């Protein structure tokens, strides 16, 4: 009995506790990210934003959540019910499982796997399925067009994202996310690889279907895009998934370019602050830029979006891979010696 407890039950309970410790703060952050977005955009447009529910409108996300939770979920009669219900579940689950490999601090990671960055890349590339399934299963023109736009857009921008990740990996010599952060102890990669960081950030905007690349839900043309037929909790799952993805992409940018949990300078007052707080602060900074972009830029036209992805970012990032690899080899900066 004791043996079974030690070797089976306790590890299972322990991992469930760890998962909850990661997931609950993420869901809370998602809820308050929606409030932060409305507040920041309000400030940028010289409005107040939500300020009625609770002090400074702080209970607004709870009210929104309760409203969505209590609403009826309607399945359209022409819809494909199985896939229709599966789609929001897939979106939401994919937005959460990626957090398993994100290092919040030194050693603070649920699964420290060797191929962490590939896992993140794989999970983020799967996000398109939730949207495609939703668009197809809704049996609605608007939803379907939104899903098709989204699929083409996400596949296109993944390519340049992959090449940008390769330039970072060349400088690190490992696919492990903790190793990527540790390699930035001397200098964050955003400085030597600044153009790559910019391309990566713009690609994450496209990957999360955010402004100015939010064509999948372009409300002026497609009503609301792929989620137009969804209501109640199913819609809420899409919403949560989208915002959790935004936080995840900010986390990815932080790990790859902004030094993860490391303080900006390894000096006295700065390195007293624990790593997870630095990590959260950097994510918050990226999220602020996400919102800032939304408040500032008009939406891209679809052909311009495709042109930017395939004719600008792809050649640029491909060129950068060659340049970075060449520089590392020529100056002998390779992190691991070339195998004989």
């Amino acid at each position, binding site marked *: 009995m004791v043996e079974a407890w030690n070797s089976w039950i306790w590890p299972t309970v322990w991992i469930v506790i760890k998962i909850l410790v990661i997931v609950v703060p993420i869901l809370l952050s998602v809820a308050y990210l929606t409030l932060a977005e409305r507040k920041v955009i309000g400030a940028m447009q010289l409005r107040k934003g939500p300020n009625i529910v609770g002090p400074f409108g702080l209970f607004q996300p709870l009210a929104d959540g309760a409203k969505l939770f209590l609403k009826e979920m309607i399945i359209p009669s022409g819809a494909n019910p199985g*896939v229709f219900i599966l789609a929001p579940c897939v979106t939401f689950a994919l937005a959460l499982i990626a957090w398993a490999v994100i290092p919040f601090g030194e050693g603070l990671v649920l699964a420290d796997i060797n191929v962490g960055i*590939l896992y993140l890349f794989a999970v983020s590339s799967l996000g398109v399925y939730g949207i495609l399934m939703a668009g197809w299963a809704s049996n609605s023109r608007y939803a379907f067009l939104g899903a098709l736009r989204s699929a083409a857009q996400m596949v296109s921008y993944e390519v340049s994202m992959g090449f940008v990740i390769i330039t970072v990996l060349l400088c690190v010599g490992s696919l492990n996310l903790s190793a990527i952060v540790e390699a930035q102890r001397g200098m964050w990669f955003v400085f030597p690889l600044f153009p790559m960081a910019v391309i990566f950030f713009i690609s994450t905007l496209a990957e999360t279907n955010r402004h100015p690349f939010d064509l999948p839900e372009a409300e002026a043309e497609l009503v609301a895009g792929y989620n137009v037929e969804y209501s109640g909790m199913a819609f809420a799952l899409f919403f949560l998934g989208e915002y959790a993805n935004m936080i995840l992409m900010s986390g990815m940018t932080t790990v790859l370019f902004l030094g993860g949990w490391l303080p900006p300078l390894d000096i006295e007052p700065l390195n007293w602050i624990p790593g997870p707080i630095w990590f959260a602060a950097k994510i918050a900074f990226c999220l602020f830029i996400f919102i800032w972009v939304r408040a500032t830029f008009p939406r891209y036209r679809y*052909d311009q979006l495709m042109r930017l992805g395939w004719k600008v970012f792809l050649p640029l990032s491909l060129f950068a891979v060659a340049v970075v690899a060449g520089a590392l080899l020529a100056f002998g900066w390779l992190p691991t010696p070339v195998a004989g």
Partner: protein
Amino acid sequence: MIVEALAFYMFAFIAVAAGVLVISSKNPVHSVLFLILAFFNAAGLFVLMGAEFLAMILVVVYVGAVAVLFMFVVMMLDINFTQMRSGFLQYLPLGALIGLILLAEMVVVAGGWQSISAGAQMAKAVAPIAEGTTNTHALGGLIYTHNVYLFQAAGMILLVAMIGAIVLTHRRRDGVKKQRIADQNARGTDTVETRKVEVGKGI
């Protein structure tokens, strides 16, 4: 040990079941979804064997890119399913024959690899990975250092295939409006005039 075995049988069973459902489900979109499930379980099997790099690449390439394109095409097809189903049993003997031939060939390959002495030596030569290297490093060394010419040849073949696909499908159509980005960017301020309009006056 028993957990590993259970995990293996779970992944293997779901993979095979999903494979059967790919060919038997009535709706082609469901088929693609089951295909994705099969890919996932194959990736799970790779992870169980310790080939985590291959597992992730399988998910990134097949699930993340190839199956998306499948789905893209299948969703837009307007097929009469009952008509498509009608010849299904007719092709069953042929399909079964091809399957049997493939099975026999795989048995011969695997058996030959085990029994022939040269094959056994080759299996020994490639299989072991030095202690302390991840399988990403091992694969990299194998592909880019030891077999770089084969790798380059494969790349060339893919390049030719890609160019061929583009040449075959790209048609020049008349009457399509295109934007010349360079011309657009080269436009000076002389094409636009800004005026300060006073309130209530108009231009």
